């Protein structure tokens, strides 16, 4: 335990600082993901030795979750897959002149969630890790289905429109190689489409490019943001107070979702937004620029990053591309994660855990002063800002997989996003379908293969059966409640 203070030696503090700064940059720049950045600096970190090297790698990993919200809030371009949801209310807040407040709340939410998840990691890791193993393909299928049903109506306008968007997302997710390998689908002989539609390209198009197109069609006066005084850059007491409950809910939810494989941080942010939409006192404002829509999801994606460390550290299982790089780094430094990590390498283990606390404080101190600088970006007149945003989007789409086809996907998604806006369709449910679709398909196929073709295998375990029942109830609930309402009205 005293090894926690290993993190405070000058060399380790420096490693932590460099890691978190790099992570922030990776988060701010759309397209460049934490896994790619970590792989790039891996050779350097090996030379630093296990403790400092892993502290730096981990710094990039959780630092990226801090910066991810910046471009989401300022220019409607998600900086990281996990910050797609943040665009919904974050960008609206920026348009109202509250960019500074949204950025600051995002940083504070990230700090709260990051710190909580380290505490949870320290206290409950082995216990929770066992629970993560109890989930197999059948359980993930049930969970994915439940998520789709509960979150479909995320933005809460027309249920039919949202459902159509979710289904479109699931359909688009089937383009390219199927998630288990073997078959290539719906590519129309376009070589570039074989890898599927890039998630980064679709989201930067739907949100960023669509915003650029929209700003071109409206008069400049309408799209200009009011200038704000410096004092008003930071959140008001009211905004801070309103952010506390969503932050706490987002933290707990994000941490739990972080234990599962796949794009956990992205799903966590959707779940948090969905929960706020249901339980928040200000739920009616969500979608039109409510601070809860930033505080909850930003806490959730950071907590998910912390939760994702548990399967890695206690079982040696990397569930995300980023933790896979972290695992490679550990193996190359002859530090094997798993049940014996603490026994064999106590200094490394506690040093890295200690650096999480230090790193989160560093990130908060780093990000809060940047708020003032970044918030000014929102006040740049659209005729200068929007061309730059378009370039940023194209770079992001290309750099995701160095594939020019993805840039065309982004352009098409941008036009589609602009049309959807004109017809009052929200792009968020589409993104949800895009995220959950492959997970559903993959786990369904695996569960059926494991059960040797017996469909009963899907509900053979209690958790799976419970979630399927819940999904069924949730999908008929709106119809039933509407019917009851009509009946009671007639009775009166």
């Amino acid at each position: 335990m005293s090894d926690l203070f290993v993190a405070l030696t000058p060399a380790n503090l420096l490693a932590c600082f460099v890691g978190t700064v790099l992570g922030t940059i990776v988060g701010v720049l759309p397209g460049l993901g934490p896994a790619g950045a970590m792989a790039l600096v891996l050779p350097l970190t090996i030379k630093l030795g296990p403790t400092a090297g892993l502290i730096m790698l981990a710094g990039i990993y959780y630092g990226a979750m801090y910066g991810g919200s910046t471009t989401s809030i300022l220019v409607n371009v998600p900086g990281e897959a996990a910050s797609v949801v943040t665009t919904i209310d974050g960008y609206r807040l920026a348009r109202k002149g509250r960019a500074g407040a949204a950025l600051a709340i995002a940083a504070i939410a990230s700090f709260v969630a990051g710190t909580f998840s380290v505490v949870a990691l320290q206290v409950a890791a082995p216990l929770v890790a066992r629970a993560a193993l109890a989930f197999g393909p059948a359980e993930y299928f049930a969970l994915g289905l439940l998520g789709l049903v509960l979150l479909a109506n995320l933005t809460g306008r027309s249920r039919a429109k949202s459902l159509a968007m979710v289904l479109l997302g699931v359909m688009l997710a089937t383009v390219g190689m199927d998630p288990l390998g073997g078959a290539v689908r719906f590519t129309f002989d376009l070589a570039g489409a074989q890898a599927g539609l890039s998630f980064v390209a679709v989201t930067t198009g739907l949100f960023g490019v669509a915003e650029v197109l929209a700003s071109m069609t409206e008069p400049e006066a309408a799209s200009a943001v009011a200038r704000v005084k410096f004092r008003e850059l930071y959140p008001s007491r009211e905004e801070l107070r309103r952010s506390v409950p969503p932050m706490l809910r987002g933290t707990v939810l994000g941490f739990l979702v972080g234990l599962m494989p796949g794009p956990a941080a992205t799903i966590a942010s959707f779940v948090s937004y969905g929960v706020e939409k249901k339980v928040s006192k200000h739920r009616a404002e969500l979608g039109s620029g409510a601070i809860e829509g930033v505080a909850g999801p930003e806490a959730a994606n950071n907590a998910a990053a912390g939760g994702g460390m548990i399967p890695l550290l206690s079982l040696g299982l990397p569930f995300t591309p980023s933790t896979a790089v972290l695992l490679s780094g550990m193996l190359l430094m002859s530090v094997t994660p798993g049940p014996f990590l603490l026994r064999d390498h106590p200094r490394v283990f506690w040093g890295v855990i200690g650096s999480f606390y230090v790193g989160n404080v560093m990130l908060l101190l780093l990000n809060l002063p940047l708020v003032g600088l970044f918030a000014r970006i929102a006040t740049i007149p659209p005729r200068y800002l929007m061309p730059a945003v378009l370039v940023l989007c194209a770079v992001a789409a290309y750099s995701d997989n160095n594939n020019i086809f993805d840039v065309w996907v982004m352009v098409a998604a941008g036009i589609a996003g602009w049309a959807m806006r004109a017809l009052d369709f929200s792009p968020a449910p589409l993104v949800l379908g895009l995220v959950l679709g492959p997970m559903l398909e993959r786990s369904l196929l695996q569960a059926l293969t494991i059960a040797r073709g017996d469909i009963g295998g899907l509900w053979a375990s209690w958790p799976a059966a419970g979630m399927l029942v819940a999904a069924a109830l949730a999908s008929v609930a709106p119809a039933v409640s509407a019917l009851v309402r009509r009946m009671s009205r007639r009775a009166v």
Partner: protein
Amino acid sequence: MRRWLACIAALVVLCAAAPTSAFPDKPLELTVLFGAGSAADLLARKLAELAGRDLGQPVAVVNRTGAGGALGYTYVKGQPADGHALVWNSNSVSTAYHAGNMKFDYTAFAGVAALTSEPVSLAVKTDAPWKDVRELLAHAKAHPGAVRVGNSGRGSFTHLVAVALENRAGVKLTHVPFGRELAVTTVLGDKIEASVQLPAEIMAQVTGRQVRVLAVSGEKRLASLPDVPTLKEAGIDLTMTLWRGIALPKGTPAAAIARLERAFTQAANSAEFRDFASRMGAVVDMRGAKEFDEFIARDDREIAALMEQIGLRKQ
């Protein structure tokens, strides 16, 4: 004006000197077909760093993933055959072609050198009743289809090794395709009986004594798993390894290939790389340019036959 003239003169001299200057005269690009941080990616990055030092030009690693490698192969094939666009290739050139993901096969490329190979490891949970590979296969023989084996994707190399194992041992297995690292997770969760994976993907669970590796499919035992027998030692006549090497578009001048072959084989031979590779569960296993092409041709026929058997061969 005089400064301009000096600049133009310098340019003329540079251009005139260019054809005689030694290859490579600009940075090289090594396309990796799998994601950043994967075993394939890390091996390629290490080699690129070492070979770049020898070549006097940086070798930039760029990940072009998707469609089982087909996307990256298509990109490199379309590049000028001047020796500057390389691909970190593997058996995936055969699996991607026969699965119908690309219209050309390995003959579109010229081999520079095969550098590493990785066996596939067959593992069960530590508390599973089967102590060695024969016991597991005996169980599979008595109960056809009862042994469920997780692999890293339909038509992937690990899947093909499991199919070849079925053939040699005369048993029936149930193959469950997984993406990245989830096969071993599912073994640990008692949902399936065994997994076939590259050693790098399972090393953490081996050290943590959560799984027991029953056999590896290589010619020799792995230095990092000294107690695990090869399939051959266990009495099953099967040797299959995933080779990786450097290739470039066909038509590249022989001089460039020879220069690259020297740089990359030296890099792979270094103590630094050998040590690095062994931690990633790979071994340095070299073949020169000429031998490499014949080797790929032989390997391609084996892969085609196995893919035919599981119904995934399209061409």
